[in-house]
């Protein structure tokens, strides 16, 4: 069984559209994250939720809005997509004891 899953794996869309990426973890972790990895493989944290509460909110355009319906899910909604939003988005989760994070397979977003 996949520990951290994301859907969709690929997302191709036009500029200006609104899209969502879903993430689910079955590890029983309290903390979940969204990262953006650019074309140079640089990985930057965007958001983190702990038990449905936002704890990290980096300097991200407010077109990006995370939503956590329960502690096993953290979805990412993006409004008015721009060319610069093209990247691979990774969801991750972590338990309380240590910082080891478990990553999902990624969602490759291409904005045309």
């Amino acid at each position: 069984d996949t520990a951290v899953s994301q859907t969709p794996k690929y997302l191709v869309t036009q500029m200006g559209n609104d899209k969502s990426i879903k993430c689910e973890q079955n590890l029983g972790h309290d903390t979940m994250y969204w990262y953006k990895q650019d074309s140079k493989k640089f990985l930057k944290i965007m958001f983190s939720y702990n038990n449905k509460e936002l704890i990290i909110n980096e300097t991200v355009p407010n077109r990006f809005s995370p939503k956590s319906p329960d502690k096993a899910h953290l979805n990412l909604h993006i409004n008015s997509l721009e060319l610069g939003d093209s990247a691979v988005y990774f969801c991750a989760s972590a338990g309380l004891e240590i910082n080891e994070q478990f990553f999902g397979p990624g969602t490759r977003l291409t904005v045309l």
Partner: protein
Amino acid sequence: SQQGEEDPQALSIQEGENATMNCSYKTSINNLQWYRQNSGRGLVHLILIRSNEREKHSGRLRVTLDTSKKSSSLLITASRAADTASYFCAQGTSGSRLTFGEGTQLTVNP
């Protein structure tokens, strides 16, 4: 910038050789972690070393940490073609935050 820097950016070796990757960082840390990313995949945790540890081993992996120099190294011994991947260091700080380095692309030639 709080991001770490990794050196080298790319490393190409022959199977059986050892691979050493270095990571420098700027802020105080609780721990330092190394992750591997195969092409088109998510990151996989390899090893964690706490700020009060100096060296840690896991299988063919050896990690060192020098907090006075704010640097860490990852050594992969007896490399295999399957070790080909990008390797990232990540600084663990308070509040379960991880700050990733820029990564080293390792290519192990058969």
